[in-house]
């Protein structure tokens, strides 16, 4: 199966560093493509040899700017080859590369920068440079700002601003002048040294800084390889936010160690087209992205001609029922077996082709739990979607489902090299070479979560007798109704989100008699639905309160209720006048819901639901980009499900 020659490539040694493995790649296959970046219509390629040169020149240039071991470099921008190279260079010098979400607000970044005392920043373009300059005005310690795209920056005279090209030229000069520098730079970083500095997602509080060493990262990659997550030489699309550990662990960790071809999309908006062009062999996405893709498919089918829709519905229903039988351990019926090749040719193949999913060998969802219906949908399409379970603290890889052993409720077996046990409180504990050594400057938090090398994940779960791990949800998430029914809001929310019309949902009911939900409609899907039926609306808020839309959502809620035990059925729901927004703190940047924020902000709604009112006047404070603060009033209707 493996295309590459493992004997020549990385031999799963963890006593090394990313830059050393990169140098090894450059030596063994100098001319093989390491990175492709789409720019002005074509994919520009960078070989392993060229990538090593770029990283070394960058490292030499950074050192000239007095970047020392232990320094922190903030990395701000979308996925760009140069940003990746800059992160590798910082790691090679023993410094911390600290990626942040490019759409993060200033407050969030300021928190990171202050805590870490970052002296360097690597920015993608003018927009990000402006942010960093603002931070500096507010007293941040950033001295040097390196920028990738010079557009719009020619007139900036701020001190410490230097373009990537200048830095490269400077570095190249140093590398040529001093022939020993190359080898010295490659050898300098130590396996225990920092490879990357990311932040945990922080769904339960402020994000905490997590430093992963080269050893952690490579151990994680080794474990995942042995667990069958990927092979040598996969082709991937690097589109995940760089600040999410999943991106660094796949794109840089596995990407370098297993010499992947790393394809970088032109822009965030073109990811879907670029995905189709590249047709990667390995694809990791958050459940959110899989859900979004599913919604896109459903919306576009809704907008298709009746014949195509008929064919689609017939074959999808067939495949989904066949897949469900298979997951329950059964065999497909004769009809399903006979019709599946026709379905593949008519429906599944073309849909996979439209989104570039035809070559996938490894398709993964990770980061949080995925709705069962979404999961089954993709499996039915013939995409071998599997769950991956991991945390920022464990370099992303803990457990994966085996290709032939996928069960809906488990996340598969722990990876080879990963020990998992369950604490008395029902918490999942992990011990592995990939577990980090402590939170950045938070000794107390470190003591709480690391005990004798065992990481307290904060997730509740149990091991099945045959070794499969079941993750129930966040320990803090498991709640009880007043009648003592135990439930996990996330589970019900995911069921709700399978409806294309529901983008987000928050299930309420902790300590109450019954459950209810706050629902955010999906603007695109509901908008099209309304358009096709001639329902006029002026805004998201307006659309969300249309009686027809509420009836539509009520039908979706009823559908979910039909599969829930009586005590856990949703009794009431409210369509919210806005979507949950990471800028408002209702969800994290990786789109996990922040329950405490939602419950606090929408207290009037919750009170109305449980106070048996039919409507609720919601006053919302809105802060505009100009800094003004306004108040929006909306009457929302409380609906019986």
């Amino acid at each position, binding site marked *: 199966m493996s295309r590459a020659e493992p004997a020549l490539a990385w031999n799963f040694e963890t006593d090394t560093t990313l830059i050393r493995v990169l140098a090894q790649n450059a030596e063994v296959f100098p001319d093989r493509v390491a990175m492709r970046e789409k720019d002005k219509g074509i*994919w520009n390629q960078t070989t392993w040899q060229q990538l090593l040169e770029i990283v070394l020149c960058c490292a030499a240039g950074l050192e000239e700017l007095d970047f020392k071991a232990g320094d922190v470099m903030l990395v701000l921008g979308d996925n760009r080859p140069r940003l990746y190279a800059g992160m590798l260079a910082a790691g090679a010098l023993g410094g911390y590369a600290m990626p942040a979400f490019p759409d993060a607000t200033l407050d969030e970044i300021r928190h990171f920068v202050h805590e870490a005392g970052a002296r360097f920043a690597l920015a993608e373009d003018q927009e990000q440079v402006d942010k960093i300059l603002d931070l500096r005005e507010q007293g941040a310690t950033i001295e040097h700002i390196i920028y990738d795209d010079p557009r719009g920056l020619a007139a900036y005279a701020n001190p410490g601003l230097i373009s990537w090209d200048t830095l490269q030229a400077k570095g190249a000069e140093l590398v040529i002048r001093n022939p020993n520098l190359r080898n010295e730079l490659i050898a300098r970083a130590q396996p225990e040294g920092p490879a990357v500095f990311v932040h945990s997602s922080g769904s339960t509080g402020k994000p905490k800084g997590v430093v992963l060493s080269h050893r952690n990262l490579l151990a994680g990659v080794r474990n995942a390889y042995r667990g069958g997550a990927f092979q040598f030489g996969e082709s991937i699309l690097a589109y995940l936010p760089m600040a999410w550990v999943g991106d660094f662990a796949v794109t840089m960790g596995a990407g370098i160690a297993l010499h992947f071809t790393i394809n970088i999309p032109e822009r965030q908006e073109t990811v879907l087209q670029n995905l189709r062009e590249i047709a990667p062999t390995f694809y990791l996405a958050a459940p959110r992205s899989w859900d979004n893709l599913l919604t896109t498919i459903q919306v576009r089918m809704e907008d298709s001609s009746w014949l195509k829709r008929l064919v689609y519905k017939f074959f999808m229903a067939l495949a989904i029922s066949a897949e469900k039988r298979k997951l329950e351990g059964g065999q497909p019926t004769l009809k399903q077996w006979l019709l599946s090749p026709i379905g593949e040719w008519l429906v599944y193949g*073309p849909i996979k082709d439209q989104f570039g999913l035809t070559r996938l060998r490894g398709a993964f969802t990770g980061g949080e739990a995925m709705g069962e219906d979404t999961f089954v949908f993709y499996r039915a399409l013939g995409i071998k979607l599997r769950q991956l379970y991991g945390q920022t603290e464990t370099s992303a890889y803990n457990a994966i489902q085996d290709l032939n052993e996928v069960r809906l409720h488990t996340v598969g077996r722990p990876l080879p090299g990963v020990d998992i046990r369950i604490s008395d409180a029902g918490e999942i504990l992990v011990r592995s070479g990939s577990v980090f050594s402590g939170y950045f400057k938070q000794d107390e938090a470190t003591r709480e979560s690391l005990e004798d090398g065992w990481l307290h994940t904060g997730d509740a779960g149990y091991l099945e007798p045959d070794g499969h791990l079941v993750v129930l949800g966040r320990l803090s998430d498991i709640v009880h109704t007043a009648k003592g029914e135990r439930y996990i809001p996330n589970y019900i929310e995911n069921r709700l989100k399978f409806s294309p019309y529901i983008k987000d949902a928050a299930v309420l009911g902790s300590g109450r008699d019954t459950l209810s939900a706050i629902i955010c409609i999906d603007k695109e899907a509901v908008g099209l639905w309304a358009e096709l039926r001639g329902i006029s609306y002026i805004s998201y808020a307006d659309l969300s309160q249309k009686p027809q839309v509420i009836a539509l959502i009520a039908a979706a809620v009823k559908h979910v209720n039909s599969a829930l035990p009586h005590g856990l059925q949703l009794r009431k729901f409210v369509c919210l006048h806005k979507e949950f927004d990471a800028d408002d703190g209702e969800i994290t940047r990786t789109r996990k819901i922040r329950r405490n924020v939602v419950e606090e902000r929408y207290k009037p709604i919750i009170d109305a639901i449980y106070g048996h009112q039919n409507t609720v006047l919601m006053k919302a404070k809105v802060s505009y980009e100009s800094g003004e603060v306004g108040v929006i009033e909306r009457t929302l209707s409380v609906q019986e499900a």
Partner: protein
Amino acid sequence: MLFRQAGIFHTDYSADRALFPIPADRWMIGILLLLALAAPIYMNTLYLSSYLLPWLVWTAGALGLNLILGWAGQFHLGYAAVMGIGAYAAVHATRAGIPWEIAIVLAGITAAVIGSVFAFAALRVKGLYLALSTLALQFVMDWTISHVPAISGGTQATLQAPDIRLLGWAVTSDAGLYYVALVWCVLVTSFMLNLRRTALGRALVAVREKDYAAAVIGVNSFYFKLVAFATSSFIGGVSGAILIGTFYHAVTPEQFSVDVSIQALAMVIVGGLGSIIGSYFGAAFILLMPGVMNSFISWAATKFGFSLGIETLAHLPQAFYGALIIGFLLIEPLGLGKIYNNIRDYLLVWPFGYTKK
């Protein structure tokens, strides 16, 4: 559903501008080429030399006319005359002992020269007036050919064309003649396919859309119209010469009369202006449909037992054939090529309704 597009990416601009980036298209063309090459093996000689061969030559001719009509947007009602010039030039040249390979090039050049000399005068007018002046070319040529015995060999005369000799080898077998036609048709097709990605092709399209708008952005519209006339006349001239060499084997003025001009025009319009695959469909439709209609009606008459007079039997196919042309153009005014493209687009976005963004 047939056209899979995942995994097609380009690392340089020349690959980005490839003619057929989608593998399914390349497969289809490859298979069609193989079928065309193997045709003498599986097809009987009657079909090969009386249907397939003239279809290929006429397709090449229609492509030439499409260049001036579909690309440059200029009317041409005298295309058969241009083909005739080529045919007579080639026959006279070979009779004078010039090798056939050179003779057909001479035929093309003669047609191109006469065609563009005429265009000099004709291009001073536009639209319907241009149509009429090209019609004049047709009548002038008809008259000249039949009234100058040196060309026609005398009034009502038929001029025998010598056998084709390629590099000294006589080509007389049906298969050999078929391959000559095939090579010419493939050559013209690949020229036309590439035309759309050249500066010339883009200039022609600019002229077609609006000649003075093209002039505003620096395209010398008169020059490009002239080039279009010359190029299309060259293709027409060579096609005429090959038609005589491979199919008719003798040349008479009636073979290139005004009816034939109209027929060539019908091929392009039924096939689709500016469509290459349309020219294939158009030529097939105009050439083969009358025969198909004929046999269909005779078959239907015997099958369902209604008797038709000789008169009706002769005219009914013509009526049906005319109705078919009108029908197709009503369904899709841009011709058969556009119908093909509609089907292709339908399959390209399958199972969705349309492409997004």
